């Protein structure tokens, strides 16, 4: 009886996945009765609300790619430098002090970052730098906050990967006369590369799925551009916009929510699975 109810608990997680897939794909299939595959996957204009309507998802995918690109440009060097410092330079005490502070960044609700993006980053930081022509809603402000949000993901997982590199490799480097930086950069980082790549994939999955920051700060104008200084709309931004509008069931607008959702689900799933495979690989290598 007890084991039976415990098994039932475990079954709930399987049921959740089944329901997610069922809900996404059943509504998506109705969506594709009204909109052709060709229009959705090859069109470059996303205009679901105004005549003539057009459902070319690339404009939303480009918006997501835009914030992924710019948040990574900022978070990757800083995250990697942090991981190298914590793993190769910092004393145990410094590490014990800095890791929790860094992880606090991951605990901040994203709606708070969203508020900062428009009220502080755009107004106090970006406008003075890029001039008053910068739109209030721009991809760069959102990317800055996304970069802060994923910094702990990159730093923490990369640091774990570097810490699991055997000491022998470092000793061999020092034995050949390499300096600490050379050992860190040319021995430890390459040896931990699969873990570092995994951290980046997980970070990308989080950026792709993040909603509040992009919905508030990046704008709501689908825009086929990778420029950080323009107003854009991401897949999640569009989904939230529909969610706010209380779209009636059986309208194309409501179904488009699930079509974009299915696309989002597949993309994050691919990045997450990639990360898990890589993590499994670096665990095997050194354990």
């Amino acid at each position: 009886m007890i084991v039976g109810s415990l098994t039932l608990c475990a079954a709930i997680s399987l049921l959740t996945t089944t329901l997610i897939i069922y809900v996404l794909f059943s509504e998506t299939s109705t969506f594709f009765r009204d909109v052709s595959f060709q229009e959705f996957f090859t069109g470059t204009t996303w205009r679901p609300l105004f005549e003539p309507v057009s459902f070319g998802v690339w404009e939303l995918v480009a918006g997501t790619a835009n914030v992924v690109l710019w948040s990574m440009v900022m978070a990757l060097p800083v995250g990697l430098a942090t991981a190298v410092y914590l793993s190769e330079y910092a004393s145990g005490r410094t590490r014990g002090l800095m890791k929790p502070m860094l992880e606090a960044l991951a605990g901040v609700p994203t709606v708070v970052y969203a508020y900062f993006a428009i009220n502080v980053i755009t107004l106090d930081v970006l406008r003075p730098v890029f001039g008053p022509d910068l739109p209030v809603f721009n991809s760069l402000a959102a990317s800055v906050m996304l970069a802060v949000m994923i910094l702990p993901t990159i730093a923490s997982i990369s640091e774990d990967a570097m810490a699991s590199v055997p000491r022998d490799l470092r000793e061999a480097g020092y034995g050949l006369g390499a300096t600490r930086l050379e050992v860190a950069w040319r021995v430890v980082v390459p040896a931990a590369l699969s873990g570092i790549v995994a951290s980046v994939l997980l970070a990308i999955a989080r950026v792709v799925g993040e909603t509040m920051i992009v919905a508030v700060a990046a704008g709501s104008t689908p825009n086929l551009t990778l420029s950080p200084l323009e107003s854009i709309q991401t897949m999640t931004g569009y989904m939230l916009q529909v969610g706010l509008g209380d779209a009636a069931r059986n309208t194309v607008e409501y179904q488009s929510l699930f079509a974009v959702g299915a696309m989002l689900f597949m993309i994050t799933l691919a990045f997450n699975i990639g990360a898990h495979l890589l993590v499994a690989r670096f665990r095997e290598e050194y354990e």
Partner: protein
Amino acid sequence: MSVVPAHLEEVTLRATGAVARRQFISRISRYVLLAASLIGVAILIYLAYETLQAGASRVTWHFLTNYPSRFAERAGLRSAIIGSAWTMSFTVVLAFPVAIGTAVWMEEFAPKNAVLSFVKLNLANLAGVPSIIYGILGLAIFVRFADMGPSIMAGALTLALMIIPMTVIAAQEAIKQVPQSIRDASLAVGATHWQTVWSHVLPQALPGIMTGVILAVSRAAGETAALIMIGAFSLILYDNTSPFDSFTTVPIQIYSWTVRPANLGFQVNASAAIIVLMAAVLTLNLIAAIIRERFRRE
């Protein structure tokens, strides 16, 4: 006995040329890397300072006990705080038993076979599903199909599904760390498998499990997108009395004030609400950290 000649006594080997340059770069790198690793924390401190500047004066008793209003000075968090409290309570009650049950089954009872690996893989993937996807799941299943409307119950069920995977993973880690000797001792004196788990493994794992649960709750407490998707973005001017009421929460209120036109003065309310939300989230994280530290020493 040979004596070291005086002119050789204080020789230090000093690198020159290329080697000196490499050593210099390596010495400098420590400070460059340290500076880089402080950027994130520095930004956080700067933002916290800006928020306190903008909103601290608005955090008053009236702000906490007033309903939302068209006028920024009169608007308050009352319905949001009450809504958050209801939603969080139901989320914990729904998620806690399922998450622990799943973790206990996986660690103690499940046959070690392909089914278990599949359940594990599935949980890891669910933990990575974006919250807005849980939101549209809640919208389709709880709000529309089960006809609960945009109610507290629909919100709590949605958030419960969202936090179950991360809670299971934390609980699993905690159960794994209970030494095998404790199970052996209990089984040796004749306890059943379930008695061993219930009276020995779970109490030992409880601090770790609680830490995981608290962190999951703090994530749910700050969740906005999933709840907006189920339709919880509405003006609530009454106190919730039933789990089937419409509701709003503190993060939703922050969002609603943030997106108002800047000249109406609601940004001050947003920063005041952020102070309230962050105080709650940081308190939860602190409690989790204290529990973890206290039981690590024992």
